[in-house]
């Protein structure tokens, strides 16, 4: 897997797991890959994956059934969304705002663009 330069590896792995949950590749009560499987798959240190899994446990996205492994929690999708929302608001939005300010982009223009984008991309 190709990692980006601008974010800690353990957070990028968290994103990867969250994506799988949002895309329903891993569903509620299903087992996620073990720490070792994930480490081998992504060619990273198992301790890094452990750190990811601890974070996702704290966010109640996965839980640890002792001796069996890690499983997707019941409210995983909702919890992923709220975790991602926080990440977006804190980390990504500021640089978008910066560009909006520097380039004098009006909110009306943004809103129109946003609506068109949603319509074209998600057909709603």
């Amino acid at each position, binding site marked *: 897997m190709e*990692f*980006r*330069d*601008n*974010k*800690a*590896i*353990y*957070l990028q792995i968290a994103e990867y797991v969250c994506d799988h949950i949002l895309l329903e590749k891993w569903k509620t009560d299903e087992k996620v890959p073990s720490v*070792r499987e994930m*480490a*081998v*798959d*992504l*060619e*990273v*240190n*198992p*301790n*890094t994956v452990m*750190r990811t899994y601890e974070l996702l446990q704290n966010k109640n996205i996965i839980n640890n059934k002792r001796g069996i492994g890690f499983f997707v929690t019941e409210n995983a999708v909702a919890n992923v969304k709220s975790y991602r929302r926080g990440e977006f608001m804190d980390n990504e939005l500021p640089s978008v705002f910066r560009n909006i300010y520097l380039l004098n982009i009006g909110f009306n223009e943004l809103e129109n663009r946003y609506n068109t984008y949603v319509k074209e991309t998600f057909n709603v």
Partner: protein
Amino acid sequence: MIEIKNLNFGYSKKKLLFKDLSMQLKAGHIYGLLGKNGAGKSSLLKNMAGLVYAFSGKIDVIGYNPAKRQPALLKEICFIPEEFYLPSVKIDSYVKANAAFYSNFDHNYFGDLLAEFDIPVDQKLVNMSYGQKKKLIIAFGLATKAQLIIMDEPTNGLDIPSKAQFRKIMAAALTDDRCIIISTHQVRDLDNLIDTVIMLDESCVALKASVEEITKKLCFKRIKELDDTVIYAEPSLSGYHALMPNYHDEDSKLDMELLFNAVLAEKIKIKAAFN
């Protein structure tokens, strides 16, 4: 797993390579040993494996003094040197002659590793390419099931698919009772595999910290303009790759090369950031 205390070592008494060097290494980690050419990476590894002897100081490896070279310890050490010699025999005779020294040698695991590394089994070892030989001694070393795995520049000579294969094999090889130490200049090959960085410079340990600790104290960032919070920076196309104290609890990705150069250039500031 390893305790080094006040180690004084050199190849001549007049010029010490290590002065009062101390460190502790624990099981369950992959340590990345970094340092300039001649900083003493290989010599430190050889001290741990009992291949060279210190003038004074103490080295303890799982309760043994490696300089005594007791079989009970040697079977728990897998040492992959940068330069090595292999005899003119085939793999099975090599294993027959050498595996007996390692009571936990795992023949099935060895077979799996040979297959994973795509090493031809019918060829004489001397006729193999450097990369194939290297992969063979790595496979043999891991199959000894030793608790301490020491590797000196393991990815040198490995082709691109073998490097990925190597990372997978090492990720799988790290268990709670094993300690893995890898010295390398090829940090890009291994930076996601290493969980603790040890950097040697000027006869001592310039830095020893886990990736988590490092990124807690320091922030690796791309910035447009330098300001006085920056500890060290290198110019890039879009500004600078900079290293600065992590004031805002940011989770950045450790850039091993930038860290390496920063430690060499700004040792005092880096030390200060960790205190």
